C-alpha cells in the first residue's frame, strides 16, 4: 500500500501527515489526529454524522480519501467554539432548543447547519429541512433541530449588521432549488 505525504490545515493548525492511499479522511481525523468529535454512523454516505467543512463546503468525510484533502482548509466540530471555549451561535442554539439528545449526529448537524446558514441566511422551514436531509438523527425527530437552526439563523441575521458573518459565503454557491420531496415509504 503506497504512502503519501499530505498537509492539512485543520481548525487553523497545520498538520503534516503520512497516510496510506486508501485512508478515508474521517479515519485520519479520528484515529491519527485524535479529532474524535467527527463520527461515523454508516458505510454508505447516508447519515452525515461525519460531516466536516472542507474549504468551506460541508463534506461527508467518510466518502473522501485523506489524500484528496491535501492542502485543504478543514473545520471540524472541535474548531467551532471560540478560543475561550464559548459556544458558536449554532452550538448555543442547539443547546437552547434541545436540538440534541445522544449527541452522536450532532457534530455533523452543526457542520451542515454552518453551511446552510452561510448559503441561505433567510432559509424557511422547508429549506432547512431540505438542507439537512443528508443528516440522520434518530433521537430528536428533527423537531427541535429545526427550531435550533431557525434560532441560529435569526441570531445571525440580527447580529449581521456591522459584523463579519460567522462563515464566509462561498463564491459560487450551489443552486438553491428544492428537489422534489422524496416519497416516504417502501
Amino acid at each position, binding site marked *: 500500500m503506497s504512502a503519501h505525504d499530505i498537509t492539512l490545515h485543520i481548525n487553523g493548525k497545520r498538520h503534516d501527515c503520512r497516510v496510506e492511499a486508501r485512508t478515508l479522511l474521517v479515519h485520519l481525523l479520528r484515529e491519527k489526529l*485524535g479529532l474524535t468529535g467527527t463520527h461515523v454512523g454508516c*458505510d*454508505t454516505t447516508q447519515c452525515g454524522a461525519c460531516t466536516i467543512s472542507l474549504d468551506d463546503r460541508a463534506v461527508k468525510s467518510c466518502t473522501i480519501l485523506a489524500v484528496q484533502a491535501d492542502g485543504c482548509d478543514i473545520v471540524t466540530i472541535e474548531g467551532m467554539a471560540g478560543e475561550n471555549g464559548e459556544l458558536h451561535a449554532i452550538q448555543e442554539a442547539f443547546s437552547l432548543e434541545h436540538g440534541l439528545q445522544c449527541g452522536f449526529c450532532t457534530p455533523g448537524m452543526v457542520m451542515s447547519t454552518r453551511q446552510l446558514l452561510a448559503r441561505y441566511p433567510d432559509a424557511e*422551514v422547508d429549506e432547512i429541512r431540505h438542507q439537512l436531509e443528508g443528516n440522520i438523527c*434518530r433521537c430528536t425527530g428533527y423537531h427541535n433541530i429545526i427550531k435550533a437552526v431557525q434560532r441560529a439563523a435569526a441570531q445571525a441575521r440580527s447580529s449581521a449588521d456591522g459584523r463579519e458573518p460567522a462563515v464566509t459565503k462561498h463564491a459560487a454557491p450551489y443552486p438553491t432549488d428544492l428537489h422534489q420531496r422524496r416519497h416516504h*415509504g417502501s
Partner: protein
Amino acid sequence: MIGENVRRKEDARFLTGRGRYVEDIQFPGMLYLGFVRSPHAHANIRQVDPSAARAIPGVVDVFWAGSLPEFDETLPAIFGTASTGPSYVDQLELPPHPVFQKHITYVGEQVAVVVAESPYAAADGVEAVKVDYEVLPALTDWAQAMAPDAPRIHPEFSNRAAHLAHSYGDVDAAMSEAEMVIERRYETSSLKSVAIEGRGVAARWDGNSGSMEIWSTTQMHYAVRDRLSQVLKIAPDNVRVIARDIGGGFGLKGAFYPEDIVAPVLARHLNRPVRWTETRIEHMLSSNHSGRQTHDVKVAFERDGRIRALDLVLYKEIGAYCHFEMMLASNTINHLPTHYRIPALRVEGWGILTNTPTASPYRGAGRQEASFTMDRILDAIARETGLDPLEVRRRNLVRRADMPYRSGLIYRDGVPVCYDHLDFERLLETTVEKGDYAGWRKRQAEWRAQGRRIGIGIGSYVEAGGIGPCEGASVAIQANGRIAVKIGVNSQGQSHETTLAQICAKALGADYTEIDVLGGDTKMLRTGFGTGASRVAVNTGNAVHLASLSVRKKLVTMAAILLKCEEGDIKIESGAVYARDNPQKIMRFGEMALACSRHPAMASHGGPDLEATEFFYPPTVVWSSGVNLAVVELDADSGRVDILKYLFVHDSGEPLHPQVVEGQLSGGFAQGFGAAMGERVAYAADGQPLSASLLDYYVPRATDIPDVEYIHFAFPTPDNPLGIKAVGESGPNAPPATLASAINDALGNDIEITELPVRWNHIVGVLRNAPASRINAGGMS
C-alpha cells in the same frame, strides 16, 4: 427547579466534539477486531482456513469456534429487564447461544474473529479468511417454521420455542351471543433501532489487579458485568463496565451480544487492549431486531359498536435465539386494550424460531403492535357498523368513573394491571376539539367533491413504564461544595445528567450548577438494573429524591449542632444552611462537608460524609397515555402521503423538564412515523437480508417529518413520591396506528390496511382503480 427548562448539562461536551463514545477510546498498544460473518442463513461450518489472513501485514491472529474455552460459553438466556415475576408463559425451551460455534443460524452470525494492529488490517484479514460451509435450508417465516414437518433450526429444539396463554371473561359465550363477529389478521414488520452509533466494545486487562476494564455501548452495564464475571471467572467487582456516552440505544443495545464476550476474552488472552465497533452493515445484519409479529383476531361486538370479546392468537418471530423470554408478546397483550374496554379476552401466543438474528425490544417493545391492532379493530368495527370511528371509540372508552379499572391482565412483574389517575376521555375530547375533528370531516367531504382525498385517523396508546425491581442513587456533598449524584443507570441521550440534577437540587436545596450526575460506570454504584423499559425517571428519579432527602436530614441535624440552634430553625437554600432568625449564622455546603468530616456526632449518621444511598422500589408499573390525530392527503398521481395535521396529546405525569419530555415524544414520533411509512427488516425466503444498509432500510429524514403539535397534560399520580410517569416509549406507539387509519380513511372502503408499514403499492393500487369521485364522503362508513 423541577419542571423548568434548565440548560442541559450534557450539551457542552456533545456540541464541541468532547463526547467520549466507545469508538473514541484508544489505549496504547490497542488491537482491533474484525468479524468474519456468515453469508448463509443456515449452515454448518466444515472448515475455517485462516492462513491467508494470518499472512496479511498487521494481522495478529484469527480465532473461531473451539479456539478458546470461553468461546463455548453461552449468552445469557434471560437478560436485562425480562420478566421479574410470573408471566403468561407456559412453555419456554430456548437453545443455548455459544459465542462461536460451527452451526450457523442467520446471515451475519459470527464465524471467526480477526485481531489486527489497525482497523484496516482487521478488515483485510476478514476478507482473507476462507470458510467452507455446508448450506442448509433456511426458514424466515413463522408459518413455515411452525409447520409440523418443518426442518429444525436447532436440532435439539422445536422451532416452537415458547408459548403463552391468558384469558378472562367468557369469550365463547360472547362470541355466540354478540350481534357481529369479525376476523382479521394484522401484520407488523420487524424493525431495527438504527441508533446512529452502532454497537461497540473496548476492553483492557489489568494483570496487576486481575481485573477487566470494559467500555461498552450497552444499556445494561451491570448485567454485562455480571455475565463477564462468570465467563472470565473473576469477581464482579473485578469487572468494571463503563458505558458513558452512548449514541442512542432504543432497546437494541439493551441486549447481550457475542462481541461483548469476545473482546474482553481476547484482551486477557493477548494481554493487549482491544476494540471493536460495529459497521452499519453489521448492525443491519447481526444486531437484534424487533421481530415480525402477526395478530389473528376474532372480535365480538354489538351493532352499537360496543366490544364484547376479543380472541387473539399472536405469532412472534423470535429469531435464531431468544434472550427475552416472551416479553415482547406479553407487552403487546398487556397494552392491547389501550383506552378501551375488552370485557372478555383470550390470548394465545407463540414464539417461533427463525433464521434471523435475535428479536429483542425496540423502543415501544410490543406497544406499537398493540396500538396498531386495537385501533385497526376499532376502525374495522366502524366500517362494519357504519358508525363514525370516533363514535366507536367513545362507546368503548374506559371512563374516569370506571377507575380504578382492572382489565383482567397481569403485568410481567406479576401485578394485575390497574388503570387509575388517568383520563382517557379528556385526552380524546381534547384531541377531537384541538384537532378540529368535525371541521376536518366537513372539509373531507367538500374536498372529495373536488377530487381531493384526505383522511382522518385517531390512535391511542398506553405506556406502562417504571418497572422495577428498583434503582438506587448515592448523593454526597463534597468538600468543595460540589454534589455528586451517583446512579446505577446510563444514558443513551435521555438527559439524565440534567433531570436527575434537577430532582436533587430541589430535594436537597442545592444549586443546580453545583451538581454532577455520574452514571454509566459499575464503579459508581454497586448495583443497578439498566436503562430500558422507560424506567429511569421513575426508579432512579425517585431514588435520587429519597437519597437527597436523607442527606438533607443529615445537613439539618449537623447544622443545628454547628450553628448552635434548633433543628426547626434551620433553613436550606441555594447550597447553604442558615439559622432562620439569624442570617449571619450561615454555612455553605462545602464548609458543612468539611466541618462534618471530623465531627464525632457523625458517628450516629453513618460515618464522616454528608452522603446517603437510597433505593426506590416501585410497587408496580405506572401508566402513561395519549391520543394522536392525523389528517393526511394522498397525491392522486403519485400516492404520496402529505400530512396536513398531526396532533399528539399525552399525559406522562409531572414533567421534570418539559423540553426533554417533548424531545422524547418528538423522537419517538419520528420512529413511529418510520414504522408506518416504510421501516421494515425484510428477509428473502433463503434468509438473505433485503435491508442490509441505510440505502435499503428506510429511516425518516428531516424532509419527511411533518410539523407536530404537542399538547401536554400532567394528571397527578400518587404512585411514587415525585408523582411522575414514564415518557421514553410514549412517542412511537400511536403514530403507526394513527397514520394507517388516516391513510385508510383517505382511500375509502376499497381497501383495509392491515399491515405495517403501509405499502405504497397498496395506496397506488387503490388510486389507480378508484378515482376519487367514486369514493363516498364521510369517513370509512
